Structure formats: structure tokens, C-alpha cells
């Protein structure tokens, strides 16, 4: 594992990103845009699933767009996140905030595909799935902030 991370960190792509503050800032901006799309989609869809907003509209009128938006946000954040990870792979992997973030991210993505997407279109279990989904993504966002700001 250690040698794999060291190899990632030594690739030309990683050293190019690591050597440029502007490139790192740009990738970080893209990463945050993806997160905004993801969190926004999670908030809007889960609030409807929880029965807090737009309860006079059927689930199907509200959730499909935001749930798809979450996927787009996820793809943008994961792609830019991998590029941000590469130049400091070893240090990040040892950071406990980063480990918590990856654990929650794994759980949130698995929950999204296994449960959330389906539940966002059905009445049964929509509340429970909405609540769990929102909590998981909030956890990913908080752990991400802790990792970048406290390292």
C-alpha cells in the first residue's frame, strides 16, 4: 500500500499538480463546485423524502432532477478529488480526518446506489432513506472540511 501511494505521488501528473498552487486551487474550486451540486441535490431531494417541503407534490415531481444532480456532483467531486489526492497520497492516507471522510464517502456512495435512488421515487421508506442519505453526505462534507483545514 505504502509503495503504491509513493508511486502515485511520483507520477508526472501528481508532481505537476503538486508543483502548482494555481492548478491545485483550480482543482479545489472544481471539487467544491461538485460538492455544492451534490449537497444541494441531497438537501432538496431528502427534504421532500422526509416530508418537509413540497409535500403537496408527488415524489416524482421533485426528486428525479436533484437525485441525478447528486450523481453529477459526485462524479465531478470524485474526479477532482483523485487529482488533488495524487500529489499528497501518502500524507493524506495517514490523516485520520481523511480516513473518516473516505469511510463516510464509501458508505454514502453505496447507500446512494443501493437504496437512495430507488427510495426517492417510492413512498415507502422514503423518509428513512432521505434522513440517512442527508446525514451521510453531511458527514462527508464536515469530514472533508476538517481534513483540508486542520491538516
Amino acid at each position, binding site marked *: 500500500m505504502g509503495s503504491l501511494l509513493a508511486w502515485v505521488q511520483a507520477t508526472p501528473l501528481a508532481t505537476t499538480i503538486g508543483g502548482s498552487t494555481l492548478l491545485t*486551487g483550480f482543482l479545489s474550486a472544481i471539487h*467544491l463546485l461538485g460538492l455544492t451540486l451534490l449537497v*444541494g441535490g441531497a438537501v432538496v431531494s431528502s*427534504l421532500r423524502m422526509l416530508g418537509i417541503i413540497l409535500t403537496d407534490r408527488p415524489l416524482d415531481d421533485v426528486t428525479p432532477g436533484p437525485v441525478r444532480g447528486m450523481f453529477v456532483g459526485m462524479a465531478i467531486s470524485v474526479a477532482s478529488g483523485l487529482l488533488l489526492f495524487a500529489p499528497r497520497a501518502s500524507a493524506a492516507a495517514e490523516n485520520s480526518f481523511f480516513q473518516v471522510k473516505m469511510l463516510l464517502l464509501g458508505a454514502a456512495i453505496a447507500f446512494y446506489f443501493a437504496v437512495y435512488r430507488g427510495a426517492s421515487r417510492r413512498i415507502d421508506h422514503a423518509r428513512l432513506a432521505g434522513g440517512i442519505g442527508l446525514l451521510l453526505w453531511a458527514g462527508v462534507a464536515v469530514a472533508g*472540511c476538517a481534513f483540508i*483545514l486542520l491538516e
Partner: protein
Amino acid sequence: MSLLNVSESILRACEWLENTQLGILVRESLYGFPILAAIHILGLTVSVGTLIWFDLRLAGVSMPRCPVSSLYRRLMPWTLAGFIIMFVSGAMLFTGFATKAYGNVYFRVKLAAIVLAGANALLYHLVTERRIADWNDAARPPMAARAAGLISIVVWTIVIMAGRMMSYTMFSG
């Protein structure tokens, strides 16, 4: 007053802000900066994150069967709560690093984009929204409403990107 004088007095005001107790606390305490920055970013994801979905509805891209006015009524409390959190934490962060922020080109771009976002929202509420009864249920709102939604998404994207670039360039040198 010449432009040079204006710039000079803004710089003086920034220096004064940095020397207030709040400014010193933000800059020198161990966790003041990271906690405020985290609150700022989380407030942003909720405010802009929810606003995007109203903008996409205005643009005729998403949630075509939701009336525009009910989406606005239900989403705005969350958007506004996020905005208040973002503005308060952002203002506090600014007191700690006012002169550096003032001299940073990305900060200026960010402020200009925020002013544009405000002007776009104001124009929408004062003019376009007045005839909302005609298109509230339309899957594809009129040109002016679609433009307001798209412009909002573009300027908030600029705000987020400039804000992130600012924090990467402000502290070097």
C-alpha cells in the same frame, strides 16, 4: 476625492479591521480560522446548493411539474439560512485578513460576482416575477426568467471558483 484616495482609505479601514479584537482572534487563535472557514464552506453548499435547483427550475431544466412559486416558497428559507451563515462567517474571516483580501485579485472578482448575483436577483424580483401568474405552471418559463436562472448559476459558479482561488493565492508572499 480621487480614486487613489478612495483606495487608500479602504486600505486604512482594512488595517483598522485587522486590529480589532475580532480580527486578531480570527488570525491568531488556533482554531478560529479553520472553524470559520468550515462554517463558511458548509453554509455555501447549503445556500448555493439549494438555490441552483430554483435556478434550474427557472431555466426550464428541472422539476417542470412543480409550480415556480411553491418551489421558491419551500426552498428559500433553506437558501436564506445558508446565506446568513455564509455572510456572517465570511465577514468574520475578512476582519482577520482584510488587507491581504483587499489586494487579492480573486477577492475582487468574487465581490464583483456577488454584486452581479444581487443585481440579477433584484431585477428578477422587481420586474420578471411581477407577471409570474402567467407562467407559474409553465415547464418552460419566459426568456427573462430562464435568463435570470442561468445568470444566477453562472455568477455563483464564479463566486465559488474565485473564493477558492483566493484562499490559495492570498497567503503566499
